[in-house]
Every structure is written in structure tokens, then in C-alpha cells.
């Protein structure tokens, strides 16, 4: 990265791309379906003019967003996600266009959990959620064994507490 911050080394599972393609397709599909129903109702009951107008604009926007978040975003997100956990810190980096680097000292970590929804389970993946007093952070789509080992590691390291 351009500002001199060492890039974290670990990457998330390559399966994430396919999974996000599927979940985003479903999400956008459902939204488009709802809009289609609304448009149909609009036509049959001839609602006031501007409602149809807004519906068309929305449909267009969702369509563009669908192209981006199904064919472009998942691969970029998967490629740019990095994390690293050492004795003292958790480091996260993500985003292609807007890059975000996050640093959490181990002593400030309050809890760590693994999370697995139906799609993650299908792909044998886990999300890891790292919480501090002020917020929580999500490392998405880690292979099962890696995720469980990481959770154990963070839980162990975070036991070292600091006075506050």
C-alpha cells in the first residue's frame, strides 16, 4: 500500500469469490423480483405517474449494482482481503478502491467468535468476528480448520489483559 504500512500476510479462502457471487445473485434477484411485481401492479392499477418513474430508476440502479456486485466485486474483495494475527496485534486490510487498514492491540480484544451461515457451511467456511469495547470486526470466509485455530489463538493471546 502507498502509505508505509506493512501488508498483512494471510489471505481469505479463494472459495469466497464463488460464494459471494451466489449470495449476491440471490440478494439482487429477490430485489429485482420485488421491483418487477411492483411494476406489474403499477401497470395494472395505474398508480400516480411519478411512482412508476421512481420504480424504473430503481430497477436501473439495482441492475447496475447487480453487475458490479456479482461479476466484479467478489473477486476484488477476495483478492484484497488480508489479515495477520501476532502476539501483540490483529491487523486487517481490505478494499480495492478505498483501502482500509485496521490495527487492534491484542489487549483490547474482548471476545472472538466464529460464525457460519448456510452458505458458509456449504463451502466449509467460517467468518471470524473480533470484538473490542468500541466495535467489532469481521474476517470473512476462512477455511474451517484455519478459522478454528485462529479463534483459539486469539482467545489465548487476548487473555493477557491491560489495566484501563
Amino acid at each position: 500500500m502507498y502509505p508505509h504500512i506493512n501488508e498483512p500476510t494471510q489471505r481469505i479462502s479463494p472459495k469466497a469469490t464463488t460464494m459471494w457471487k451466489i449470495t449476491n445473485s440471490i440478494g439482487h434477484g429477490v430485489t429485482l423480483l420485488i421491483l418487477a411485481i411492483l411494476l406489474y401492479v403499477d401497470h395494472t392499477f395505474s398508480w400516480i405517474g411519478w411512482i412508476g418513474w421512481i420504480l424504473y430508476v430503481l430497477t436501473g440502479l439495482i441492475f447496475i449494482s447487480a453487475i458490479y456486485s456479482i461479476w466484479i466485486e467478489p473477486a476484488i474483495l477476495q483478492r484484497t482481503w488480508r489479515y495477520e494475527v501476532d502476539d501483540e496485534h490483529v491487523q486487517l486490510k481490505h478494499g480495492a478502491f478505498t483501502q482500509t487498514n485496521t490495527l487492534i492491540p491484542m489487549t483490547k480484544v474482548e471476545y472472538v467468535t466464529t460464525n457460519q451461515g448456510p452458505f458458509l457451511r456449504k463451502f466449509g467456511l467460517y467468518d471470524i468476528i473480533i470484538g473490542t469495547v468500541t466495535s467489532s470486526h469481521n474476517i470473512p470466509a476462512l477455511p474451517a480448520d484455519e478459522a478454528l485455530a485462529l479463534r483459539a489463538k486469539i482467545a489465548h493471546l487476548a487473555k493477557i489483559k491491560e489495566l484501563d
Partner: protein
Amino acid sequence: MSSHTEYVTKRLHPINIGFKLINLGRSMLFPIIFLFIIKHGSDSAFTKYGRIAIILFMVISIIGILLNWLTHRYEFEERTLHIYHGVFVKSHRNVPLSRIQNIQKHATFLHRMFNLTSITLETGASGEEASVKFDVISYKEAERIEQLVESLASDQLVEENTILNVDKMDEEEPALFEKTMHYTVSNKELVKASFTSLSFVAIIPIVVSIYFNIDEFFSLDDVTGNLFSIILDKLWILIPLTLAFLLVSISIGLVTTFLRYGKFEISSDTNRIYLKKGILNVTSFSITKNKVQAIQFEQSLLKRWFGFVEVKLVSAGSVGDDKQETNSLFPFLPIKQAYALVEILLPNYQINLDMYKLPQKSLELKLLRPNYFWIIGSIILFSWKPEFWYASPILLAIILVYKYLVFFRTRYLLNDHLLQIKTGAFTSTLFVTDRHKIQEIEVKQSVLQRKFGLANIQLSNRGKPIHISNIDDLPQNIASRCYHWYAARPQNTK
């Protein structure tokens, strides 16, 4: 240190029963008057059963109050406050004293007549169980609790900071509770505060609301009409009238300011800072020095003109209603005195006012960045009301001036273990925090910022609500330096 380890289980002061009974009486006053006095002669089913219901309710409530008082006990043991209560469902709550973030005492006039106070111990937890409150407690007992919390907290400091000398543990520290007074407010300052806070304007809404309230019952239209014609006849009447109005409003402003901030005191001992204020109702706030999460210097436009600043101690526990300014060192401190005071109270916070400005290219980027609010606003304006086209450039001008002010007033400094951030276009806030109190850091860079070599940083601190501080469009090398500065925080405790 086992001198203060007598663990006595205590009940609340018996006067709690009195206060609760008064409250019960107050809330039942209207139904009692209605059913027993107004409906005195009536013997309809409604009044009959109503009276029985009220008597039953009162009896049950009184028994409840007594039982509650009997079962509500508390005890300090080791480093924990134990609270037992509940008549049928017994509950036992443990509050580790090290978790207590600040202590607030609030004594109303009624409290003070009997030498009582309420005391609230705030923990950093969220939800209903975040604080322990004793509504009515003798002032002496409140002081004892405050000292207990402090001494146990400092014991722990000695123990956990193994770097400290080990023999110190057996040493009695008599100076621990000896408070030093650092600031008491003078009458002159209170007068100044009264004008700076525009307290004399407070009378206007009061007068207006009184007028409309009376107007509702007796139509005042004729009276006001007559008054206006008299005044228009003899315009000179306006002069004494205005003077009288000014006099009354200023004196009301003075009285409210004196009642609120009168007897303002700031004191401290080895570990703790104490703030106290108020003439009729007395509010106190105390916090262990190492629990201060950050310091905030706030200046409204008016305060800047008068050279005042409000200093707030940021605590991880709740500090109550914002209007009560519980955690504020006097809200109208002269600037120089404010920094001197902070250095005495918190020797760690050696603030350096020689801070850095944002570079020119940061302004360029801020001005260049499209403002969606303006774009969308203009599109709507042109399509709906094109005759008001001039609102669009006016809005743009306001936005650009605002952006310029944000750029012009932003300052930052990495000062050894402190981070100082000053922000705000009109009002200004200087936020100072210690590296150890920052919970996490985030460096963010958009594509446009990458072209300009700029980045945003965001820091989170504990507080209620959580304190997020941002510096936008900072040179990227400074941003990464902040990141490394934070990463290099020494791990001083195991």
C-alpha cells in the same frame, strides 16, 4: 493493606423508607383526594370499590417498601461490592470495584436538609446493570464508599504494577485521601459565565409561555391591544420598559448561573479528581486519574471570543445528562488556567499547543470532492422550482466556506504518548488522549486520496457514547506514522 477489610453487610439508611413513603403519597395524592374528598358523599359502586382498591394498594405498597428495605443489603468485600435484594426472588449482584469508572453524587435541597445524598457508581458496562445507585444515603456513608472504591482500586494498582516497589505494599499512605484544592470559582467568573452562556436570554421563552398560558384562560388580546396603543402614543415609555426587562432578565440569568455553578470546586488527591458544584442542589463527580480516557477542550464561538474553554474528562462510564455537565471542569475556564489545571490534575497530559495544520493539497482535495448533497439538491431545485435558481450557488458558497473552515481549523500533533486532534468549523474541540486509552486505529485511503497522497485516520476511545475521532485528508506519511506510533505502544502490563 488489611486495615479497611472489615466486611460489614449494611442496609440502606432507614430514611429511605421515609423518602419512598413520601413518593408513594405524592403519586397517590390525586386519587385519594378524588375518592375521599371530592366524592365524599357518594356511595356508588365505583367510589366504594375504588376506595377499597386504594387502601389495599397503599397497604401492599407500604409492606413492599418495608420488605424491600429489609432485604436490600450491600457489602464491600475484597475488591467487590455485593448487593443483595429481592423479597421473593432473591438476587445477588457482584460489582468488581476495579470496573467502576466514575462516581457521581447528587444531593437535592431535601437531601441536604438531612445531611444525605444520592450516589451512583458507574461501570463501563452497557445496559441497565451499568450503574449502582443508592438513592438516599448519609453523606458520611457516601464518602466512605467513595474512599473504599479508591483505596481498593489503588491497592490493585500497587499489586498489578509489579514495576513498582514491592515494599510499598506494606507502607501506609496517609496522604492518599488528602485532597488539594485547585480551583474555586470566584463571583467575577460567575458573572462572566452568566453572560457568556447567554443565560439572560432564557427569560424570553419563559415570558412567552406564561403569556400564552394566561391567554388560554383569559383572552389577553384586548389587554395587549390596549397596551400597544398606549405605548405607540407615548414612545418614551419604551425606554424604561426595555431597561426594566433587561434588568429582570439579567438578574434571573445571574441567579440561575449562581445556583448552578456557585461553589464550583476542583480538587484532587493522589489518585482521584473531584469536581463539585451547586448551591441548592449539589452535584459531585469523581474519577480515578488512570480511568480518564481522554480530555476534551470545547469552545463555542462565544466562548472563543471571551477566551473561555470547557474542559471535559471523558469517562468510560456514563456521565449522566449532558446538560448537567457532570464531567466538566468549570465550563467557563479562562484558556490559560484550563491548560495549567489539566497539567496539575493529570501530569501525564502535557499538552503542546504548537500543532500542525493540514497541507494545502488537503484543501484542494476537499474543494474538488463532489458534494452530492449540493448536486442532488440543485437537480431537485432546477426541476421543481427553477425560479429559485440562485439558491443553488448560495448553497454551494456556504458549503465551500464550511469546507475551508474545516480545513483551516484542523490541527493535529503526535506528542510523545499523546495524540492531539483539533476539529470543528465554528465551535472547536481539542481532543487529547493517551496511546494506551485508544482502542483501535483505522487508516483509510480512497482512490482520489491516493492520487493526492492523503489518507483518513479514525481512532476509537471508550466513553458513553463511544468516542470516535477522525482526521480526514491527512498526509499519508503522517497517517502511517500514527499507525506505527499506535502499534509501538509498550505492553506495560502482563
